[in-house]
């Protein structure tokens, strides 16, 4: 096999694993959009917030230490203990659930029946609030996140591909793990929404708010539930991206990576989010690979959007979205 083809193949594989990472973020968007029709721009910041909280718990940081120090002139920074990861992750999950309850009680409840654009703006406001809150609570410096996931080149893939093609592919073990975790996540979400009572209620709300209300489903509880699940998905995405590139502000920008995935797959489809992620991941890696000599690098910033735009021109509701029916 020629070298170019091999390189392209490697880029494709890397694109697939990167696509899974995008899909992880996009999943959170889809969950909330389906259940409440809210386009939750804060999903990326939620991932950042979850990762910051996790690191904070792990290293035993004192929350709001900067603020407390500024007000009282103290010198607090750490409690002096380290929480093991098995405890820190459930603790963070609890924080995300508490956050969901607060968001429902203080924001969403008051914005029922507002236009979608107002709700969208509210989530942007929420994104700012959470970003500031995360920084004030845990400090803004770059933190390393280690939850014991393997990192670095995967030896097995390298050996295998070397035996086949005489050229070892470089694939990050973390991204292989991410693919596995994403699969587990999607499977458990599917099982949850198909076979449990709450899951069925969730789907009912997604289908029709008023009909769900009329059969006695509590809308507010379902919203808390969705935002909690979205928070947990955000935590998973935060762990994955945080392990890969450190926990810092740029983590929240992964939301911008997930948006094209979302419109490509359709706002309302979970399989759409996964397949959209894979298409975008592969597409941008290959485009960068073939076009870099011609137009220069860093194309992945915009390529995903352009690709999504081209897809949209042919299918305005995304690949798997519900068909938009308009009446006067």
């Amino acid at each position, binding site marked *: 096999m020629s070298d170019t083809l091999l390189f392209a193949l490697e880029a494709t594989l890397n694109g697939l694993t990167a696509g899974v990472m995008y899909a992880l973020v996009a999943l959170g968007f889809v969950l909330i959009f389906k259940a409440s029709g809210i386009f939750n721009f804060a999903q990326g910041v939620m991932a950042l917030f979850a990762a910051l909280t996790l690191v904070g718990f792990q290293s035993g940081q004192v929350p709001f230490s900067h603020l407390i120090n500024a007000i009282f002139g103290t010198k607090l920074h750490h409690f002096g203990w380290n929480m093991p990861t098995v405890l820190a992750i459930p603790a963070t999950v609890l924080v995300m659930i508490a956050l969901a309850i607060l968001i429902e009680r203080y924001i969403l409840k008051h*914005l029922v029946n507002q236009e979608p654009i*107002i709700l969208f703006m509210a989530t942007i406001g929420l994104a*700012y609030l959470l970003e500031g809150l995360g920084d004030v609570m845990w400090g803004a410096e770059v933190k390393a996140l280690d939850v014991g996931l393997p990192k670095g080149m995967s030896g097995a893939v390298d050996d295998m591909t070397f035996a086949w093609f005489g050229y070892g592919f470089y694939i990050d073990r973390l991204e292989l793990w991410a693919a596995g975790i994403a699969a587990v996540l999607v499977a458990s979400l599917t099982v949850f929404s198909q076979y449990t009572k709450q899951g069925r209620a969730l789907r009912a709300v997604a289908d029709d708010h008023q009909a769900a209300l009329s059969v006695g489903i509590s809308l507010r509880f379902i919203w808390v539930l969705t935002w909690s699940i979205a928070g947990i998905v955000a935590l998973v995405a935060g762990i994955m991206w945080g392990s890969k590139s450190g926990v810092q502000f740029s983590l929240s920008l992964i939301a911008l990576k997930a948006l094209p995935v979302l419109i490509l797959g359709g706002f309302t489809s979970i399989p759409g989010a996964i397949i959209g992620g894979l298409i975008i991941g592969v597409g941008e890696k290959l485009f960068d690979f073939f076009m870099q000599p011609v137009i220069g690098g860093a194309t992945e910033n915009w390529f995903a959007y352009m690709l999504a*735009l081209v897809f949209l021109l042919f299918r305005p509701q995304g690949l798997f979205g519900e068909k938009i029916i308009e009446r006067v």
Partner: protein
Amino acid sequence: MLYREAGDFKTNYVADSQTFPIKFDRYGYYFLLGFAFLVMPLIINDYWANSIVVPFLIYTIAALGLNILIGYCGQLSLGTGAFMAVGAYASYKLMTAFPELNIVFVVVFAGIVTAAVGVLFGLPSLRIKGFYLAVATLAAQFFLIWLFTRQPWFYNYSPTGMISAPQRELFGVAVTGPRASAVAMYMFCLCFLVSLAWLARNLTRGTLGRQWMAIRDMDIAAEIIGVNPLMAKLTAFAVSSFFVGIAGALLFTVYLGAAEAGEAFGIDKSFLVLFMVIIGGLGSIFGAFAGAAFLIIGPVLLKLLLVNTLGWPTDLAAHLEIMIIGALILGFLILEPHGIAALWRTIKEKLRLWPFPY
């Protein structure tokens, strides 16, 4: 009593169709204009000009433009930052390619170039709607910023990748470059703002504005009663981008002086202008002014309070500031989703009866 429409009789069509048909509004407007043109130049100093007044004037132009697109035509756009960058880079290329060209024409041409780019990126709006369109406009944001930071032709192959505005004069007074005085910068921006706000007000009252609003309220119904959606949407994109492009050109030439696309015109600028439009009030010219004032003055006041008064460290203050801005936006949306403009309407209702409640 204080504010009333009653008793304000018109005896000819010209009087009836003037920009501000109500006397109270008209006098308020004359008073504000007089204050802005006659009093402000006397009392303005460098600090006020640089931290509040000039950014306010420039962002109001951008908010007016975005309000036309979102508030009047209903097309959600998140690419404002990039369109401002188009205005800035167009003005830079014009200023360096034609050094003799008057700065007013430079800014206006920059607006026209941006309008053309806006129409180009507005084309998908004919097929894509709502949030799908919003995300599609992000394509413009990221693609254009990439173009301006990676393709050296746009920044004249300067080694830093920055563009900087050379000095230009108007009537012998420097308005751009490092030697421009606060008053010159202020007056230059103010003239643009007043003429553009007048344009926006009259465009939105006329045929074009009514077509935009019909498209916003229900595009299919509008099409059936004979509004051409192609023309309406593309003109909205063109006019909006023209405004935003002028704002970008002014921001770069007059206010910043030197800029780098990713830094100065990133996606946070798009959101900033969007917030101005939403907080000010969708579909209201006054709202653009109010929203810009709120979001320009708010952070300055917060910073004064936290850093200068309480003496907290600047990084903590910056984080708290983001948090408070987010909370303010949320609070505003919950209390008054239709923005400051709706608040003003309520005040007018009350003033009509005051001080006699019946």
